């Protein structure tokens, strides 16, 4: 599903100092339906790797193929179209649009689907409602993010991530802003849906419990893969 080769990301520094290498020569293959956890200390390049795999940024060197599409050959808008159709995101700080209700937040990915796959407005709303009911927020459809707790906001985030029926779901510290109990509930929800829908899941986390439930754990250190663990 995802093939990354020699992924390198450097950021130029001011004053003519040598560029800062955040990620250096990473090779990674993720199979369809797999759950891969990326672990590592702060500054190890986890989020950079996630951004590159999802096509949110272009690597300085190397290449990514996502669901058979070479991202390097695409413009930013083409990558955006690919994300709209095949990718879902769950963010650490939920990243819900504050001015949209829960229902509208979940509607956004459905509205961004290409015309051929875009459901009619009433159908889109039905699906968004279904998703919110599935994550246990059927009674909070018209609430704004600020009227929801952190756990509820992340549930909306998960509903939004799955709404467009993505092939791959990227999660960046999905429990990072939640307490242990709520975090556990969110992990449970994420993995259950992933299992049911057969989505490929790449999750960046510090949470060893979450990592322990992945099929593989990629340990990053200093911008390189230190080791890969396979859970049985």
């Amino acid at each position: 599903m995802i093939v990354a080769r020699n992924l390198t990301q450097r950021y130029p520094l001011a004053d003519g100092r040598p560029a800062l290498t955040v990620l250096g020569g990473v090779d990674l293959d993720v199979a369809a339906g797999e759950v891969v956890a990326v672990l590592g200390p702060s500054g190890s390049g986890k989020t950079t790797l996630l951004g590159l795999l999802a096509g949110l940024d272009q690597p300085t060197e190397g290449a990514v193929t996502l669901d058979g599409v070479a991202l390097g050959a695409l413009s930013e808008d083409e990558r955006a179209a690919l994300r709209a159709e095949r990718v879902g995101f769950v963010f650490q700080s939920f990243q819900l649009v504050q001015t949209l209700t829960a229902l509208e937040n979940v509607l956004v990915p459905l509205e961004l689907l290409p015309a051929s796959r875009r459901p009619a407005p009433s159908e889109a709303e039905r699906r968004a409602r279904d998703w919110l009911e599935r994550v246990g927020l059927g009674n909070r459809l018209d609430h704004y993010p600020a009227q929801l707790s952190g756990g509820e906001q992340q549930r909306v985030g998960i509903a939004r991530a799955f709404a467009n029926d993505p092939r791959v779901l990227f999660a960046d510290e999905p429990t990072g802003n939640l307490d242990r109990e709520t975090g556990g509930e969110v992990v449970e929800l994420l993995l259950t849906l992933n299992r049911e829908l057969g989505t490929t899941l790449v999750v960046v986390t510090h949470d060893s419990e979450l990592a322990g439930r992945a099929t593989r754990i990629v340990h990053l250190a200093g911008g390189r893969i230190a080791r890969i663990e396979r859970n049985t």
Partner: protein
Amino acid sequence: MNRRFVVAMARRELRASRRRFALYGSCMALGIAALVGLHGLRATVRGAVDAQSRQLLGADLRLASRAPLDASLEALVARLTDVEGYAAARITRFRSMALATRSGRTRLVDVQAVAGSYPFYGTVRTEPPGLWAQLQDADHAALVDRSLLVQLDARFGDTLTLGEARFRVAGAITRAPGSFGVRTQVAPRVFIARRYVKETRLVRPGSLVDHLVYLRAAEEPLGHWLGAHRTTLAAARVRVQTVAGYQKELTRTFGVLTRYLGLVGLAALALGGVGVAAGVRVFVREKLDTVAVLRALGAGSGDVLAAYGLLAVALGAGAGLAGAALGVALQWVLPAVLGGLLPVEVDATIEPTAIATGIALGLWLTVIFAAGPLLDLGRVPPLRALRRDFAGERTSLRGRAALVGALAATLLAASVWQAPSPLVGLSFAGGLGAALALLAGTAAAAAVWLRRHRLRRAPFWLRQGIANLFRPRNHTVATVLAVGFGLFLVSTLQAVRENVLRQIAIDTRPDRPNLVLFDVQRDQRAEIAAFVTERGATIVEQAPLVSARIARIAGRDVTDRLGDETPDRDLRWALRREYRTTYSADLRPSESVAAGRWWTPQDLATAKPAAVSIETEIAGTLGVRPGDRIHWDVQGVLIESVVRSLRDVDWGRLATNFFVVFPPGVLEQAPQNVVLLLRLADADARAALQRDLVGRFPNVSALDASVILFALDALLREVGLAVRLLALFTLATGLSILVAAAATARHERTREALLLRTLGASSRTVRRIVATEAVALGAIAAAVGSGLALLASWALVRWLFELPFDPPLRDLAVLAVGTLAITATLGAMSGRPARAKSPLAALREAELSGTGAG
């Protein structure tokens, strides 16, 4: 482009931010309202003038001549007798002193002695009604402008002396052809029957009299007649006023006024645009995270730009509609404000073109002002959804330059379109740009200065409040632009008005004349001199007055030149006019030689042909230079002259100023009268002198400086009121921007205030911080606005009005303090909700209203 997403997102954002957008929109709406109101009124006036043009002239054609029509001209007019619908009426028009016998007050008036059934179109309304029809038959009846009754403290039935005749004030004129509110204030009219002209004994050789013939006749034959005789009439210096020409004259003057006023509206619109840009910039800053998420979820940059662009269009359309509605309402108010300057009575009407133009201009300017900040949204990288610190690229330099260029071109085009002439439009756009740049530049410099000179030992709240002026996301430039510009306009108008009026007032000081006597016959001079001196007056200046016309110039007869189609309006006027010339051996204090040289006693002895000195500006119109020859027709006698010098004349002073001056020894034998400039300090003594003068020398007219001051003040007040009304629109726009900026500041500062309170700051401390920032902002805005107003008014008074400048510091200080107070109050009020609630409740509210990360 994903249209459904674009529309849905724009709709949702509009729903979430409707109050803010209403505030931003109100910044534009006021400028649009001013433009719609003025353009609507102009169109209404034009429509009314078109519809009533015959009623305004009162006839199909008017002939005007300084001399009675001679036999050949009368024969020419007589040829129309057989034309269908023919009728003629005559008015003899001259100035005179009017004395109200009961009150003893005098006033220079415009006497119109009517014969025939004038007007042929429209009616003259009187109070009591129906008196006009009786004017011809009534015994010594006079109908006067209402303003004259007030000025003379006269009542119906009072006796009014004009020259040697006495009339009874039968009633007042409330509406007559060609009457304007202001015009009747400056020169109030007295209508009498023409048969009494002789009895007044005011029309003598050399008197300034207009002989008017009003004609009614079927359009086509009248047109043929005019076509056939236009040259003859021009050669005889008969001025022709057609209905179409009068129509054009009336609408042009009012059009120019509304165009000037429209520039103030345009300034309000431009300022509103700056407010929109400032507001949208903050909005965009708050939306960066939202857009990053949308981009991560798959929205293309085009989709994002389209969604937020649509928001700008909605904002512009909303502002345009609100402004148009307000502008239509303004159309009902403006006639009351501009009443005295309106050439016709108008009923406000809905003018679709004015409304459409206002909406279109508002929409375009909103979009173009908002485009700068909005374009940044198209460049938000999706990676920002993961890393908030990941900054996107800003719009390229070329893109920004293109936007600024489009904005400048729009404002330039709008200014030229709005202004009475392209030069005025260009100057206005330049001045507007310079003023905005100066305000913004000074505000930015003040912020930098405050940052470098921190108040290290001041109390915490003072340091925090001042620091808010230069910290990131400050509102210093936006507020100073918004409030400072409005204050700048209002203060500049006030300072210019004060200086112009003060200059006239200066002329009432001890050494300056304050009473002018006209039409003094040569043989009356000594007697009148003794008469006025006896009553305590000092003769400051006197000059003989000889009427003359140009007969031949640049080797061609004037009649030939006037027959040409080519001469422009000013040249025609300069060639045709009757010049009141004088002769003098010396230059006057108000004159200086600009070219050539003044005559010496030796020149005077030998000069042949006679030397003459011409005023610089009219010399420019006539195209003459020293050495050129001009032949003068001095009441029938031809005098050849050679231009010896060109003179600059200070027309602003109450003095005997002339376009044309001859040396002694040329005009002494010509029919002439004398003008005397007197000084008599006491107003009552001056009034008594005028009263006695009218009794003893009825042919002499007197003009009191206070009347000139009064007339000018009336005119300035009338125009000034309109300008100030428009300037208030600008100030109100500035305050809308201020409210918008303050509301935005509140959104942005709430978290900070809450943090401070959480850390232990009392609500009083927070309140003081907010108040300090508000007062400091108001003070900078007031100082910069006033300073710029001083500079602009100095430049206008010095270079445009060519008068000495004396800053009206007290007025400016009052305006500045008022502005500071309003700004500080509004600013301080904006911090209120955050203070009033508990930190937790306010934090939730801030999150809800979209301040938090999106």
